[in-house]
């Protein structure tokens, strides 16, 4: 038996190699260099380089790490390029809004940048993985650095507590997840997603159980009810920049893998998972939005809001079981979610004058008088999160609802519209506090150049998506995963 080396083309995974390599390089650099600014700029440069390389791969379909007579382990197609761009942009956004914050809260340590780069690599791998083993490894690569990042504020008990909670529930969920993968391997004897698709028969009990376990694991990662309990605690306890990073990155990456695994490997069982996902989506929408009504801490409120947004995204995933164009609406929604959430967290960070202070709703009283620009930006982000036209949030929801109706999920679309109305109450309450009250706050608002740049990008993105969604939807539509292509290699 002679050994046949697999076909490897490293150019295809170049964005991953850049971010991961930069992370390793920073670890080495940490021995010699103690100046914090260096790490910031190097990280920014690495992410920008990865973004350029990533965008250059648009329009092609590649596979790499192809063992003989097998499917590629890693693929790069429009779907993964689109998602990687969102993820890398979320990395840039996090860096921009974190610059001043990390400095003034004395959290600026090289570890932050390294862990972020490693986590980003894992997130990108989630969308590119074409093999269940790799999905699991990517999931861990994205999660483990995030556990540490959540506990970055070592001086604060709540940060450490949130890190521990995140870790315990995250490890638990990945245990369930990998058990599901093992069952699917048992049912099909294959781990590559197209190979699973080729062998899988509908109604196999082993595969059915495996799919259910997979779904539980994914639901944990994206924060869907009934596995959402960690989300508000971790969002509240983690340093706000980390919260911003994981609210976009971890969620987008979770949906990336969810979409690819379910639409490429498991369409044979779409009847089963479509119904289950629709049910989870409905529960997530209702519980996320209703509990958010009672929050007075803005980070916790955004935590519940992110649960609710997972619900809207899940509608699109469930609809994708019927017709694959729904994937496009999910992608568009994620783009809108990226800009809006990053912007909202940017404002929260500007107001958090000390670590863990200035994050209550009360602190937003009279912000319109103290800082009209910041509150105008917050107004746009809150409108976008609610889904009021002409903002990105509205465009995202419009396409999601349309795909739900096309998939005959009328009841789900109606629940989603009703919960959107409910969500207006807690989002607009922030606006109400900013504009209708006279505040007596005197704490400074920290809006440095980097943060302003970040907010400006988020604002432009939100409004652009709101005014001209059609072009963006075309783009997202082109990124829909092609039918289970990617032939066996040599």
């Amino acid at each position, binding site marked *: 038996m002679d050994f046949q080396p697999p076909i490897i083309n490293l150019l295809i995974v170049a964005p991953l190699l850049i971010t991961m390599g930069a992370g390793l390089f920073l670890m080495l650099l940490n021995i010699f260099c103690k100046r914090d600014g260096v790490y910031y700029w190097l990280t920014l440069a690495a992410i920008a380089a990865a973004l350029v390389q990533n965008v250059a791969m648009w329009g092609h379909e590649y596979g790499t790490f192809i063992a003989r007579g097998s499917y590629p382990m890693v693929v790069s197609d429009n779907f993964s390029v689109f998602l990687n761009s969102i993820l890398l942009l979320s990395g840039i956004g996090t860096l921009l809004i974190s610059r001043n914050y990390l400095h003034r809260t004395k959290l600026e340590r090289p570890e932050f940048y390294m862990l972020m780069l490693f986590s980003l690599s894992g997130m990108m791998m989630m969308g590119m993985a074409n093999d269940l*083993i790799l999905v*699991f*490894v990517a999931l*861990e690569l994205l999660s*483990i650095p995030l*556990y*540490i990042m959540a*506990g970055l504020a*070592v001086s604060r*008990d*709540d940060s*450490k*507590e*949130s*890190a*521990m*909670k995140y*870790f*315990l529930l995250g*490890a*638990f969920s*990945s*245990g*369930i997840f*990998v*058990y599901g993968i*093992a*069952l699917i*391997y*048992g049912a099909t*004897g*294959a*781990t590559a997603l197209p190979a699973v698709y080729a062998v899988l028969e509908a109604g196999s009990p082993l595969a059915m159980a495996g799919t259910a376990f997979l779904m539980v694991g994914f639901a944990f990662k994206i924060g869907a009810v009934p596995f959402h309990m960690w989300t*508000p*605690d971790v969002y*509240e*306890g983690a340093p706000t920049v980390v919260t911003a990073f994981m609210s976009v990155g971890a969620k987008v990456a979770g949906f990336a893998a969810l979409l690819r695994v379910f639409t490429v490997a498991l369409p044979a069982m779409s009847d089963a998972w479509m119904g289950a996902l629709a049910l989870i989506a409905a529960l997530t929408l209702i519980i996320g939005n209703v509990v958010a009504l*009672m*929050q007075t*801490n803005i980070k*916790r409120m955004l935590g519940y809001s992110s649960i609710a947004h997972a619900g809207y995204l899940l509608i699109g995933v469930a609809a994708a079981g019927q017709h694959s164009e729904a994937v496009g609406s999910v992608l568009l929604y994620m783009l809108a979610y990226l800009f809006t959430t990053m912007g909202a967290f940017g404002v929260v960070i500007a107001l958090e004058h000390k670590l863990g202070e200035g994050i209550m709703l009360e602190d937003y009283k009279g912000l319109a008088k103290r800082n009209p620009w910041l509150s105008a930006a917050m107004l746009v982000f809150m409108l976008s999160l609610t889904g009021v036209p002409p903002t990105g949030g509205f465009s995202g929801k419009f396409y999601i609802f349309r795909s739900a109706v096309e998939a005959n999920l009328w009841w789900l679309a109606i629940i989603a519209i009703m919960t959107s109305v409910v969500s207006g109450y807690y989002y607009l309450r922030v606006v109400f506090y900013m504009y209708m009250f006279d505040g007596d706050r005197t704490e400074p608002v920290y809006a440095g150049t980097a943060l302003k740049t970040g907010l400006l990008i988020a604002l432009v993105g939100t409004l652009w998506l709101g005014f001209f969604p059609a072009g963006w939807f075309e783009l997202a539509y082109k990124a829909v995963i092609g039918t289970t292509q990617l032939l066996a290699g040599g």
Partner: protein
Amino acid sequence: MIPMSWYLIFSAALFAIGLYGVMARRNAIAILMSVELLLNAVNINLVTFWRYRTPDRSVGLAWAVFVLAVAAAEAAVGLALIISVYRNRDSVIAEELDLLRN
């Protein structure tokens, strides 16, 4: 030869014990141990399926090694986090760590 189902039942039992441990135990270390049980149940499953389903391809075996490595990384990070919480709070009991509650 022992039938495949025996191994699968054993693995499922191990998984159930782990699941029960995560739900019922309050000590963070015990929860971590239960998570390790989950991962070990997975490994038994993987090796069993490899042996009985695809003995000519080493996918399942290689995969079990991946799961082991991930479990080790998780334990390293997890124990560090638990120790750092214990230093401040003198407790790793999940119910006593309730700063984050509404």
